[in-house]
């Protein structure tokens, strides 16, 4: 099979509608994911369209974790024995490869249990610094940037996931700072006419790189420029971007970036925070205990330099090793025509699938996509409502057909309120999805409309 589109056409009813663009060889990719061969709900083939919540794992990741436990398991950064050396090497080598994926040096990569914790780590730097400064405790040089006072402002956007909203609400509650937000437009974009929300009192701007509901890729450069102009730091939630497109932390000109392992073929229990080293150095610790100290006396302690300062206790070693394997797997992907590799190949594949899904769903009367209808600056999260049927009921009928999607507010409740919708159905795509999955989705949606008697 020489043509990428031809190799993906199986199962699609109308060849003229098969997406154009550089697709991955989905059949080959799918063979790497054991779970995709199982059936659900009385023998239905599994059509997994919920990778935006969590991705499936290739055998290479499962093997990496198993081999770690079978051959190299030991507590890292402790002990002088051979297993401890091997475990430490595997852990630190994974840190290098994970950092390289986003263009970051090892010492700027901090591991947390998930992206939520990574974002909280930054948020707590503000509340902890403010609390310590209030009674004159010792703070690292440069800590002043993390000190907040009543009247200071934290800016988020209306399309944030709760993980990049609630921690900042809490920081405001603890410090007296004020939360402000950049609104969204009716067509699902960030309202750039309202960047004036960022003002002279703004200390932090926290935003998503790609909305987990709308699929919108935000104009980070424009927001970062506005933040720079007032000396504010920029925190980027990259949970929906790093797994799906090439991301370079230096090109983005942000200060912190968080992403999760389990959304990018890696294990659960591992999140990643990247931060500029001079900022990490100026931050107080988040969780404290073993491994993160420099010197401990009964009267008090001093702390290790980053990233160890933020990795208290025995870390999630097998998960880090597994995530390293996931990064290797992603880097090793090639588009079927051989022209693209790694994250560029992943992005091109998803771009083609998203275009196809938007086009196919537009052809179903009574289905309304919430978010951009075109693929410009847009990733592969497609949320929609079916007129006359609540999202939960749509999800139930889809599940009965083996089509697994997410329903609800997707941890972005304010965004749903903004659009006057209680819940949406969300399909998200990844490297193992092909046009046949989009076809299954559309067929299941039509079936749902018939089941509830709302078909046009």
């Amino acid at each position: 099979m020489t043509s990428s589109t031809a190799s993906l056409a199986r199962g699609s009813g109308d060849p003229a509608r098969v997406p154009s663009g550089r697709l991955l060889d989905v059949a080959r990719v799918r063979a790497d994911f054991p779970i995709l061969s199982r059936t659900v709900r009385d023998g239905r083939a599994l059509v997994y369209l919920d990778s935006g919540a969590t991705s499936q794992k290739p055998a290479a990741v499962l093997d990496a974790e198993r081999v770690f436990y079978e051959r190299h398991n030991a507590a890292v950064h402790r002990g002088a024995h051979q297993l401890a050396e091997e475990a430490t090497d595997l852990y630190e080598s994974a840190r290098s490869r994970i950092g390289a994926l986003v263009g970051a040096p090892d010492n700027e990569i901090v591991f947390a249990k998930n992206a939520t914790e990574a974002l909280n780590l930054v948020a707590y730097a503000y509340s902890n610094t403010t609390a310590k400064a209030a009674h004159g405790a010792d703070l690292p040089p440069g800590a002043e940037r993390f000190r907040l006072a009543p009247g200071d402002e934290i800016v988020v956007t209306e399309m944030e996931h709760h993980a990049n909203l609630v921690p900042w609400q809490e920081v405001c509650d603890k410090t007296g700072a004020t939360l402000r937000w950049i609104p969204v437009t009716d067509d699902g974009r960030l309202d750039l006419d309202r960047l004036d929300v960022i003002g002279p009192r703004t200390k932090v701007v926290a935003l998503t790189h790609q909305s987990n509901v709308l699929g919108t890729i935000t104009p980070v450069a424009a927001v970062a420029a506005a933040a720079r102009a007032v000396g504010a730091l920029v925190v980027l939630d990259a949970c929906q971007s790093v797994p799906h497109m090439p991301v370079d932390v230096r090109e983005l000109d942000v200060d912190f970036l968080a992403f999760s392992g389990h959304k990018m073929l890696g294990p659960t229990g591992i999140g990643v925070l990247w931060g500029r080293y001079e900022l990490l150095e100026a931050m107080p610790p988040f969780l404290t205990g073993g491994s993160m100290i420099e010197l401990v006396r009964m009267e008090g302690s001093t702390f290790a330099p980053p990233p160890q300062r933020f990795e208290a206790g025995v870390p999630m070693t097998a998960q880090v090793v597994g995530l390293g394997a996931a990064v290797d797997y992603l880097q090793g992907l090639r588009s079927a025509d051989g022209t693209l590799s790694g994250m560029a190949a992943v992005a091109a594949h998803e771009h083609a699938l998203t275009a196809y899904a938007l086009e196919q769903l537009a052809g179903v009367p009574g289905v309304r996509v919430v978010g951009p209808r075109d693929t410009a600056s847009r990733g592969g999260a497609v949320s929609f409502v079916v007129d006359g049927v609540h999202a939960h009921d749509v999800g139930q009928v889809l599940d009965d057909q083996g089509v697994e999607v997410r329903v609800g507010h997707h941890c972005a409740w304010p965004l749903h309120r903004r659009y006057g919708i209680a819940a949406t159905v969300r399909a998200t795509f990844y490297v193992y999805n092909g046009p046949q999955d989009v076809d299954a989705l559309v067929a299941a949606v039509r079936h749902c409309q018939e089941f509830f008697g709302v078909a046009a």
Partner: protein
Amino acid sequence: MNLESMYQEIILDHYKHPQGRGLREPYDAEVHHVNPTCGDELTLRIRLAGDTTGDGRAALVQDVSYDGEGCSISQASASVLHELSAGRTVGDVLAVQEEFLALMQGRGQVEPDEDVLGDAVAFAGVAKYPARVKCALLAWMAWKDAVATALTTKVAT
């Protein structure tokens, strides 16, 4: 297991033609319950009459009015609750509520008692879908909360 076992005709009928929907005056208590995982919201009011002393079980449920947004299961459940409770004693409806709760938490292993449950027996299939149990229970939990609030208020005044 198939869809029809969950979406019984009675449920779809209540969903499309909800009974007693809309918030009404007068009322003794109003509660607002949400299902945080899916964003379903329900506001429910209760009006009690008769003997509200003691444990309140002898009191009459004069009206249950409600409004909200949610899936067919949660909306139909509120509608069935309205029908089942109006004009009965708190004690009687509590017995239905307890039976319904046991059914919903039974993972499909509990045999429903139709004599107690009435139309609510139609929700038996929902118990096999753990993610939907909260939808079916939303109105019933709100009702229980509203009764407790109303009785406390009445005793206090």
